[in-house]
C-alpha cells in the first residue's frame, strides 16, 4: 500500500490517541476500583469495628450495672443493665449482618455464646440473694464471663482492623498504580512529539525546501531539477509534476524559437 502523507499523519495521530486512550481507560478503571474499594472499606470493615466498639461499651456498662446490684442499688442497676443489653444486641445484629471476612462467622458465634453465658449470670436476681455484696462471686463468675465476652468482641474488632489495614495498604499501592499510566503516558507523549517533529522535518519540510530550491535553481538556469526526494508520497508526485511541467515549458520554449 502506498503510504501517502495523509495516511502517515493520520496513523501517527491515531497511535498517539491510542496511547492516551489506553492510559485514560486504565486510569479510569483503576480509580473506579479504588472508589469501590474505599466504599467497601467503609461499608464492610468500618461498620463492624464501630459495632464492636459499641458492644465493648455496652459490656462495660453491664459490668457497672452488676456492681450497682451488688451494692443494693437494684433499680438503677437493672435500668443500666436493660439499656446496655439492648445496645449490645443492636450492635451485635449489625455485626452479624455484616460478614465480610473469612472466619468472621466464627467470631460472631463466639460472641453470641460468651454473651449468653455472661447475661445468664446477671439475668437471675442478685439483690437480696447471697450474691449481693459477694465479691468472690463477682470475681470468679460475673467478671470472668464479662472478660470472655469482651475478648470475643475484641477478636472481631482485631480481625476487621487488620483487614482494614491490609486493604488500606493495597489501596495505597493501587492508587500509585492508577497514577502510573497517566505519568508514563505524559512522558511518552512528550517523547512521541519530539520524534514526530523529527519525522515531519525530515519527511515533509526538508523535501519541500529541497523542491523549492530546485525550482529556484531551474529559474537560475539549471534545467535538471535535481532534488533528493526518496519518499513515495504526495511530495514525490509534486516533484514529478513540477519536473514534467518545467520540462514541457522548456520544450515549448525550444519549439517557439525560430
Amino acid at each position: 500500500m502506498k503510504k501517502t502523507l495523509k495516511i502517515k499523519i493520520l496513523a501517527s495521530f491515531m497511535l498517539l490517541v491510542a496511547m492516551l486512550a489506553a492510559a485514560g481507560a486504565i486510569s479510569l478503571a483503576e480509580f473506579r476500583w479504588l472508589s469501590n474499594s474505599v466504599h467497601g472499606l467503609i461499608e464492610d470493615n468500618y461498620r463492624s469495628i464501630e459495632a464492636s466498639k459499641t458492644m465493648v461499651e455496652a459490656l462495660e456498662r453491664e459490668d457497672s450495672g452488676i456492681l450497682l446490684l451488688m451494692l443494693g442499688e437494684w433499680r438503677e442497676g437493672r435500668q443500666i443493665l436493660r439499656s446496655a443489653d439492648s445496645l449490645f444486641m443492636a450492635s451485635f445484629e449489625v455485626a452479624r449482618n455484616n460478614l465480610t471476612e473469612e472466619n468472621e462467622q466464627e467470631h460472631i458465634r463466639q460472641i453470641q455464646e460468651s454473651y449468653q453465658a455472661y447475661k445468664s449470670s446477671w439475668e437471675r436476681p442478685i439483690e437480696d440473694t447471697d450474691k449481693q455484696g459477694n465479691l468472690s462471686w463477682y470475681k470468679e463468675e460475673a467478671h470472668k464471663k464479662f472478660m470472655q465476652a469482651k475478648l470475643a468482641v475484641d477478636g472481631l474488632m482485631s480481625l476487621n482492623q487488620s483487614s482494614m489495614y491490609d486493604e488500606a495498604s493495597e489501596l495505597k499501592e493501587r492508587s500509585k498504580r492508577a497514577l502510573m499510566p497517566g505519568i508514563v503516558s505524559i512522558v511518552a507523549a512528550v517523547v512521541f512529539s519530539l520524534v514526530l517533529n523529527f519525522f515531519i522535518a525530515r519527511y515533509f519540510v526538508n523535501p519541500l525546501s529541497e523542491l523549492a530550491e530546485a525550482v529556484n535553481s531551474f529559474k537560475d538556469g539549471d534545467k535538471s531539477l535535481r532534488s533528493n526526494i526518496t519518499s513515495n508520497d504526495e511530495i514525490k508526485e509534486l516533484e514529478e509534476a513540477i519536473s514534467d511541467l518545467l520540462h514541457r515549458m522548456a520544450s515549448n520554449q525550444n519549439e517557439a524559437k525560430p
Partner: protein
Amino acid sequence: MKKEIIIKHLGYVLLLNGLFLLISFLISLFLGESSTIALLFSGLICAIFGVFPLIFVERTEHVNFGEGLSIVVFGWLLTCVVGMLPYIMWGGEFTLANAWFESVSGFTTTGATVLVEIESLPKGILFWRSSTHWIGGVGIILFVMLVLPQSKGQRLSVYNAEISSLSKMNFRFEARRIVRILAVVYLSLTLLETVALMLFGMSFFDAINHSFATIATGGFSTKNLSVAAYDSVAIEVIIMVFMLLSGMHFGLIYGTVMLKKENIFTSSLAKTFLLVMLAGVALVTAKLYLAGTYDFWTSLRFASFQVISLGTTTGFATEDSAHWPIFTQVVLIYFTIQCGMTGSTSGGLKFDRVYIFFQSIGKQVKLLKHPQGIFISKVDGKVIDDKLEQQTLVFIVLYIVVFFTSTALLTAMDLDGMTAFSASIATIGNVGPGFEKVSSLGNFSTIPDLGKYVLSINMLLGRLEIFNVIALIMLKRH
C-alpha cells in the same frame, strides 16, 4: 549517519520487547494477577513506539558502522528504559532505582538482583524478568549482525581472531550466515534445556525461566534461593552443562553438532577454556574438602556449580560462597574477571582477551631473553598481530580503570571493601553475585540508590565493551 535508520531499528528493538511483554501480560491475565495492567500498558507503549518509525522510514538495506554502533548502544539503553516500565508501574519493591537496576541487570544478562522476595512476584513479572535476559542475549546476536560486519580497525580484528577457529571465510561477507548459526544455536539450546529441566521435575514455567537465564548467561531465578531451592543434583548438572555451552563460542557449538572441522574439540581456545574451568573446579573442591567445609562429593558438587556459574558469567547459586575459605573466594574472583568466550552471550573481559594477554606476557619474556628475536603469538593457527595485542592490553587497562573507579565510588558510600570490590567486578563482568553483602544467595538491596546507578553503568559498560561507547562518542564528535 542517518538518524531515521537508527530510529527505525530502535523501533524493531521495541517491537521485540513488546512481543515478550504481550506474553507476560497473557500469563498475568490468565492467572488474574495484579501485574496485568502494568504489563499491558508497557507492551502497548513498546508497540506504539515500535510501529511509529515504520510509518515514515522507507525500506533500508544498508546499515553502516556508525549507524550499527548507535543502534546497539542506544538500543540497549532504550530497552533498559522500557524494561523498567512494568516494574515501576507494578510497584512493590520496585522504586525507580530498583526498577532501573533490575532492568539493566536483566538486559545486560548480569543477573544481579535487588529483590528480597522474588517468589512473591506475580508470574507475569517473573516471566518478563527472565525475558529481559533472553532479549539481552538476542541483542548480542544483533550486535554481531549490525556492528561487526561494518566495523573497521580493532573491532573486526578482535572478532576475526575469535572467528578464525570457526572458518577461514571472510567474516565481513558471511556475517548473515554467522548470525543465522548463532540464532539457531541460541534457540536450540533454550528449547533443549527447557525440555531437560522438565524431564527432571521442574515445572514448565520454572524450566523456561531458568532456561532463558542460563542460555543468556544471566542468572535470574524464580526462587529466592536460586537453583539451591530445588536441591536436585540432576537439575544442577543440566544447568551446569548448559552454562558451559552458553559460555563458549556459539559457532564452535554449531561446528561440533554439524561435525565440522572447526569444533570445540579442535579449537585450542575452547580446550584451554575448559581446562582452566576444570582446574578451577579442582582447586575449589580440594580447598573446601581439606578445610573440612563439606565432605568430598558435596565439595565437588558446590565447587563445580559455583565455578562454572561465575566462569560463564551466569550467576546462579547452589550455596552461599560468602562463608567459604578465602582461597576459594580468590579463585572465584579470578573466574569473575576472566568471564566466558567471545561469540557467546557472556559479557565482561572475555576469556579470549585473557588468553591473548597471557600469550603476550610469554612473548615479552622471550624477548627479554632474546632481544633480537622475532616471536609471534597464535590463536588456533592464526597469527595475532601486535596491533591486536596492544588493543587487548588497552582494553584490559580500561577495564581496570572502570572497575577501580566504581569500587572507589562505592567505598565512598561507606560500603565495606569486599562488597564494593566484588560488586564492581561482578557487574562490569556481567556476572551478578559477588561476596559479603552481595553474595551468591544474597542480593543488592542494601546498596544505596546512588551505588545502584554506578553499578548499572558498570553493567552497561561491561556489556557494550567500553570501546563501543568510546567509539560512539568519537563518532559523534566527528
